[in-house]
Structures are given as structure tokens and as C-alpha cells.
């Protein structure tokens, strides 16, 4: 048997070279610690810069207002002091120390000057300026703000703030003006100082904050190393070492998830290994099972020994074989081992080997099965048994001797009458019980396979095939129907028809058990043998129409009652003695009954014709039913109980014993049958002697 080459295992992925960089290892990473520390510093810088800007602006405004208020007050105080000093003869003696003191105490004051109404300096911190004309700083503009209750006046330019207050006596006469000048740069210096201080603090905060953030992140992210190591172990296929991390944060949860995933991967990997092991075992079992089957059909004489097997998804223990024995006979066997998988296949292998060995020792099939039972009983575990049919066929005589150990009944299609016999068996399956008790249930039977006969043997996968609903099995009756329908076309037709019938029955459902079929077919006799008399059917019909006595009969069994009175009315026949008449009547009745049952299948609407041609002393029957080509007649062996029980086929046997019959099927005139009674056929030897 040709087997398609098995596909090799898929190519293994290329092994990773040591030191080879993966895509992940070639990437550069930035530590979260640095990211978080940098982000913290940037955030703190931005925050403190914003706060510093606001603080500086407010400070500048407050200091300006404070300075202006103080300047106004100092100018008024200077004017008050100047009013009494200017009434003296040497005002500079009062005003000079006063001005010096003010400048010494407040270095930010640019000048302190009292000016007479005519514009000459009468009081100043520098004595050499006394008497000089006062020149006011350039580009002084009035300052917008004024202080309630103050007589001082504020002026300012880009560098100075100048407060002036009138020097008056009690009666309001003006004695001059007091000026106090203040350098704006002092305020900027103060603000700059504060800014530098703030920047120092900012730097300190950034340093401390950045370090604190880095340390905290280092502490928080430390479990990542353990998680990473665990993931890398899983990547290497090490699922057994868990990630040991007692961490209350999300990292602990991640570690638990990794451990769970690792355990599930372990289970999945184990399941995968088991599945692959089973798959390998199944392939091995199927390979062994296929190797045990015949690679081609066997032909011997007029016999064809063929078979087929369709393996189910789950390998069963079906087996069939046919081989020639040393004496030229053909041994055939079909078996079903209770047990599937590699175990079932091993048992099948043992059965095959033992069968080949015992077949040359035991000529009796039941003896062979008994020897198999004895040997297997010592090898097989209990609850393992084998059903088996074994037969030996003599291609010359057609004799088949068989025995069955609990196997399905054989179905024998009889070509001569289109019937199907079931050859039941009474043997118990091999190894069903121990102690050689099975042997006592086995016995040989024999039957002759006639031309055109087809014997079918199956395993239970055929008759137990379920329909798509799982409600009904295919059953033996359907197997018998297929055999009866297809057997006239030969072994191939039976195999094809049975396969199609099973596919139609099961539809798209997969089959769960092996379907194994064994066929023994004997070639039918050539039709030419039937028409060997050389007479043209048309001439026979013409002769009957011209000179025959005709009887029209309806195609129903009850109508055959008309034969007897019609025969009594025929002059030549009425002269027969009683026994010969009965024989003639019986032969004609059986032939017509065969036409009614098989040609017309009891359809009473049809008619057929019977003629008696006295000159030839024969009957001619023309019917238009299904053509009937019987196999060459061989006397039935009524010593065989199967022959006695079948209840069919006796009719033609009786006809052939009483008369000579010739069939001309499917002629233009219809199916023609010639019946010529044998002389003395029905007489006892004593009568013939008389």
C-alpha cells in the first residue's frame, strides 16, 4: 500500500548565539532615578524663580515707598532745623554737622543741602560748598506720589530721588529750601543682594531636593532589579524559580503576577509536551497499523480478496489481511482489538504475527483461533480482548471454511437469487475469558462461494457509525442493503458504495472508530454460458406465438394459482402421471414465483406470458421485469444449517433439479426463459426401474 511521505518536523528556530545582542539589549536606557531627580530640580527651579520674581518686584516697590517717606520726613526735619539755624549768624555751624551725621549714618544719601531763597548753599555736609550756587540734579521730574500732611516735595530722575521742603519761620516767611538727595542705586543694591541670597538658597534646595529625590527613587525602584531578573529567567525558560519580592507596592503585585504567569507557563509547557508525545505516539500507531495491512488486493483463480480501512482520529486496533497458504488456499482475517492508541496497535501486531505463524500449522480456522486465544491470554492484560473472523478459501472449489470469535456476522450476497445471508457465529471473543474456555465456543463452518457471490466482513466501526445527531447507528441492515445493491457490480463497487453510504450517513461528523472492510468476491459466470444453445430468442418467440398454448398471468403470487388448471387443460401434459404432473407444476410455479418476486418485486399491475410448445415439450416465459442472470446452478447442500435456515434460493434449486432452464435476459422481446422438464426427474428410483 502506497503511503504518502510523512512531513518532517518543523524546523527548529535558530539557536541564539552566545553574546549575540538582542534588539532589547542594543537600546540605551535612561534611569528613572535621574529622570525623577532632574524633573524635581527643574520643577523646584521654576517654582522658586517665579516666587523670586514676585518677591523682588514687591520688595522694590516697598523699598521705594519707604525711602520716599523717609526722605520726605528727613527733608522736613532738615527744613525745621534749618529755620532756626538760618536765623542765626552762622547757620553752617548747625547745619554742617547735621548733614554730615545724616550722610555718615545713611551712606545711601547722596547729598543734604539747605539753599537760601537766592539760590546759594547755606548748609551742606561739605563746608567748601557753602556760599556756592545750588545746581539741582538734571532732569528731575516730580514724583507722582505724595504723602498726606507732608510739605515735602519729591522729585526724581533715573539716579536720584530728591525730597525738598521749604524752610519757613512762624509767620510763613521763606528762608530757603532744604534738599535731601537719595541714590536709587541703593535700592537696586538691596534687591540684588536679596536676589543673590535667594539664588544661594535655591542652589542649596536644588542640591538637597535632587539628592533626596534620587535616594528616594533608588529606594523605591530597587525591586525592579528582582522583577527584571525574574522576567529574564522566564525568557530563558526557567519557570521554577519564583521572583522573591516582599514589597507592599505595585512591584509586589507585579512580582506575584509574574510568579502566577510562570506557574501557568509551566503547566502549559507540560501540557504541550504531553500533547506532542501523544501526537507522536498516534503517528507511530497509525504507521504500524498501516504497515500491517495488505498493500494490494489479492487475486487467486476466480476470487478477489480485497479490503479497505479508514483510520479514525483516534487510532483503533482494526486489522485485516489476506495471504496465500502453502497449499494454495487463501487465508483471510479481520480483527478488532478492544483498545486504542499504541497499545491497541501492539496487540494488533502480535495478532498479525501469530496469525501468519499459526496459519501454516492449523488448517482448521477454529483451531487457529483457539491457539491465538491461548497464546494471547498470556500476553494481554485483563479486559483486553479481540474479536476476529478467520476463513480459509479454496479458490478451486469455492469452499470456504470459517470460524468467528465474537466478530460481526459475515454477509454473503448470493448472485443466483440476489439474496444476502448473514453467517452468524457463536464464538466468544479471544481472551474475553481465560483458561481456554473461549476455545470451547469456537467451531468451524463451511459454505460454498458460488460464481458472482460476494462475502462482506466489517468491524464495528461500520455498523456502529452514528448519524450527525448521535441518535442512531448505521446498523447491519443498512450494510446489507448496500451489499445487495452493489454486489452485482463486484468488489470495487461494494467498497465504493459502502464508503459513500457511510459518508452520507455520518455527513460532516468525524468518525471516532476505524472503519475496516474485508471482501471476498468470486467472479460471475460469463453471460455467454447462459446463451449457449445457439437458438435465436426471436425464433423461439415466433414459434411460441405460432403454435404455443398461452397463459397470461398477473405479476402477483396469488395469480400463480392459475397454473394448475391451465396445465390440466394442456392435452399433452394431462397425460402425465400424477407425480410427473406435480413436478412439472412445481417447477413452473417456482420459476414464475421467482419472476414475480425478483423481476416485478410483487407489482401486480404488470402481466407476463407463459407458453407451452408441445412439439418441443418446453415452456417459454416472457416477462418485462428486471433482467435476471443467475449463477450456474450447483445443488444446494442441505447438510449445511445455514442453507436450510436462509429460506431463500430453494425455489431455483428445485427448478434445476426438475427441469433444464435457459435464460435470455433483456432481449428485444423481453426476458425469455425456457423450461424443459427432465424426464423421470421427479420419479423415485423404484418408479424409474419399473
Amino acid at each position, binding site marked *: 500500500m502506497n503511503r504518502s511521505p510523512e512531513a518532517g518536523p518543523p524546523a527548529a528556530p535558530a539557536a541564539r548565539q552566545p553574546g549575540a545582542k538582542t534588539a532589547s539589549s542594543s537600546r540605551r536606557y535612561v534611569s528613572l532615578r535621574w529622570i525623577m531627580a532632574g524633573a524635581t530640580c527643574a520643577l523646584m527651579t521654576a517654582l522658586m524663580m517665579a516666587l523670586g520674581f514676585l518677591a523682588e518686584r514687591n520688595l522694590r516697590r516697598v523699598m521705594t515707598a519707604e525711602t520716599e517717606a523717609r526722605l520726605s520726613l528727613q527733608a522736613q526735619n532738615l527744613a525745621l532745623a534749618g529755620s532756626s539755624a538760618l536765623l542765626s549768624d552762622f547757620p553752617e555751624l548747625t547745619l554742617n554737622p547735621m548733614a554730615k551725621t545724616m550722610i555718615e549714618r545713611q551712606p545711601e544719601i547722596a547729598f543734604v543741602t539747605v539753599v537760601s531763597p537766592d539760590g546759594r548753599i547755606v548748609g551742606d555736609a561739605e563746608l567748601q560748598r557753602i556760599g556756592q550756587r545750588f545746581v539741582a540734579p538734571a532732569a528731575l521730574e516730580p514724583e507722582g506720589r505724595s504723602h498726606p500732611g507732608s510739605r515735602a516735595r519729591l522729585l526724581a530722575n533715573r539716579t536720584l530721588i530728591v525730597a525738598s521742603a521749604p524752610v519757613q519761620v512762624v509767620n510763613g516767611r521763606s528762608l530757603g529750601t532744604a534738599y535731601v538727595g537719595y541714590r536709587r542705586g541703593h535700592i537696586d543694591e538691596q534687591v540684588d543682594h536679596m536676589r543673590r541670597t535667594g539664588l544661594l538658597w535655591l542652589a542649596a534646595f536644588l542640591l538637597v531636593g535632587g539628592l533626596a529625590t534620587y535616594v528616594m527613587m533608588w529606594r523605591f525602584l530597587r525591586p525592579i532589579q528582582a522583577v527584571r531578573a525574574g522576567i529574564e529567567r522566564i525568557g530563558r525558560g526557567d519557570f521554577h524559580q519564583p521572583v522573591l519580592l516582599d514589597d507592599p507596592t505595585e512591584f509586589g503585585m507585579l512580582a506575584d503576577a509574574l510568579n502566577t504567569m510562570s506557574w501557568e507557563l509551566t503547566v502549559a509547557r507540560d501540557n504541550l509536551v504531553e500533547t506532542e508525545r501523544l501526537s507522536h505516539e498516534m503517528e507511530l500507531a497509525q504507521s504500524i497499523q498501516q504497515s500491517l495491512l495488505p498493500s494490494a488486493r489479492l487475486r487467486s483463480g476466480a476470487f478477489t480478496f480485497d479490503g479497505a480501512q479508514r483510520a479514525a482520529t483516534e487510532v483503533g486496533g482494526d486489522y485485516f489481511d489476506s495471504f496465500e497458504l502453502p497449499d494454495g488456499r487463501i487465508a483471510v482475517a479481520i480483527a478488532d482489538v478492544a483498545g486504542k492508541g499504541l497499545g491497541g496497535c501492539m496487540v494488533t501486531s502480535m495478532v498479525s504475527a501469530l496469525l501468519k505463524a499459526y496459519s501454516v500449522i492449523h488448517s482448521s480456522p477454529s483451531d487457529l483461533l483457539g491457539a491465538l486465544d491461548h497464546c494471547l491470554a498470556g500476553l494481554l492484560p485483563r479486559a483486553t480482548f479481540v474479536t476476529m473472523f478467520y476463513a480459509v478459501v479454496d479458490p478451486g472449489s469455492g469452499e470456504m471454511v470459517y470460524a468467528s470469535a465474537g466478530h460481526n456476522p459475515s454477509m454473503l450476497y448470493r448472485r443466483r437469487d440476489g439474496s444476502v445471508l448473514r453467517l452468524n457465529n457463536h464464538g466468544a471473543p479471544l481472551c474475553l475469558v481465560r483458561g481456554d474456555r473461549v476455545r470451547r465456543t469456537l467451531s468451524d463452518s463451511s459454505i460454498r462461494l458460488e460464481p458472482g457471490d460476494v462475502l462482506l466482513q466489517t468491524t464495528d466501526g461500520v455498523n456502529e457509525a452514528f448519524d450527525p445527531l448521535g441518535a442512531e447507528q448505521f446498523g447491519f441492515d443498512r450494510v446489507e442493503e448496500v451489499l445487495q445493491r452493489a454486489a452485482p457490480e463486484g468488489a470495487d463497487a461494494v467498497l465504493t458504495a459502502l464508503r459513500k453510504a457511510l459518508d452520507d450517513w455520518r455527513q460532516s461528523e468525524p468518525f471516532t472508530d476505524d472503519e475496516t472492510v474485508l471482501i471476498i468476491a468470486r467472479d460471475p459466470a460469463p453471460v455467454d454460458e447462459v446463451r449457449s444453445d445457439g437458438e435465436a430468442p426471436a425464433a423461439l418467440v415466433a414459434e411460441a406465438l405460432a403454435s404455443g398454448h398461452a397463459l397470461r398471468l398477473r405479476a402477483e*403470487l*396469488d*395469480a*400463480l*394459482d*392459475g397454473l*394448475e388448471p391451465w396445465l390440466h387443460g394442456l392435452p399433452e401434459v394431462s397425460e402425465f402421471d*400424477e*407425480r410427473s404432473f*406435480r*413436478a412439472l*407444476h*412445481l417447477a413452473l*410455479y*417456482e420459476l414464475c*414465483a421467482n419472476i414475480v*418476486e425478483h423481476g416485478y418485486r410483487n407489482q401486480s399491475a404488470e402481466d407476463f406470458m407463459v407458453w407451452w410448445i408441445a412439439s418441443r415439450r418446453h415452456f417459454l416465459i416472457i416477462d418485462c421485469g428486471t433482467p435476471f442472470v443467475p449463477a450456474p446452478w450447483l445443488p*444446494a447442500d*442441505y*447438510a449445511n*444449517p445455514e442453507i*436450510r*435456515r*436462509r*429460506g*431463500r434460493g*430453494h*425455489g431455483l*434449486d*428445485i427448478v434445476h*433439479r*426438475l427441469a433444464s432452464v435457459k435464460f435470455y435476459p433483456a432481449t428485444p422481446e423481453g426476458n425469455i426463459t425456457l423450461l424443459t422438464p427432465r424426464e423421470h426427474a*421427479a420419479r*423415485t428410483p423404484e418408479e424409474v426401474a419399473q
Partner: protein
Amino acid sequence: MNKEVKFSRVERPGTIVLRVYGPLDASTSPRFLDECGDIQSLGKNLVINLAEVPFIASSGIGAIMAVADAYHEGQLNSVRLAAVSPAVSMVVDLLSLHEFLEIDDNEDDACSKLKAA
């Protein structure tokens, strides 16, 4: 046309004699089998009187062989034929069935042999 076949039963000690009146062919054989099956289910021996059978076809002789085999397989009771008509005798001779069918000249002989067995 429907052929007529009739049956009558006669009780004998441990045995029932079934008398058949009419032909045994494809139309009437099923009734004959029913009668014999009914008697076998009673657990008694059977004697089939075939004296009034004018015609027997292959289906009829097949039915008789089936009854004989059924009794043979049952082993508890037996069946014998009695007073077979010439038509039945001819077929029995033709097919050489004497080896498989127990045939007696009359009912009494058949019942005696069954009783003796």
C-alpha cells in the same frame, strides 16, 4: 384469488398435533410459521400432519425446515412430520431432506416416538 389454508390442533399428552389443510406456498407459509411458533412457545412437542397439503412450494418446505431447526436449537422439545401428502413427499425426496426431517406414516406413530424420546 386468495388461497385458503386452515389449521387445526389436537392435544396429545405433551404434544400438539397441527393439521394443515391447504397448500403451503409463498402466500400461506407465513401463517404456518406463526402457528408453529405459537405452539413452540407453549413448550410442547409438535407433530405436523401434512396429509391434506395438495401443493407445497419452496417457501413451504423452507418454512418446515425453519421450524425443525428452531425446535432443534431449542433442544427442549421436538418436531416430527406425519402422513405427508404425495406433493410433500415428492419435494422431500427431491431435496433429500429425510436426513433433517423426522417423518412418520401417521400421527400416532409420531406421538409415540415423541413420548418414547
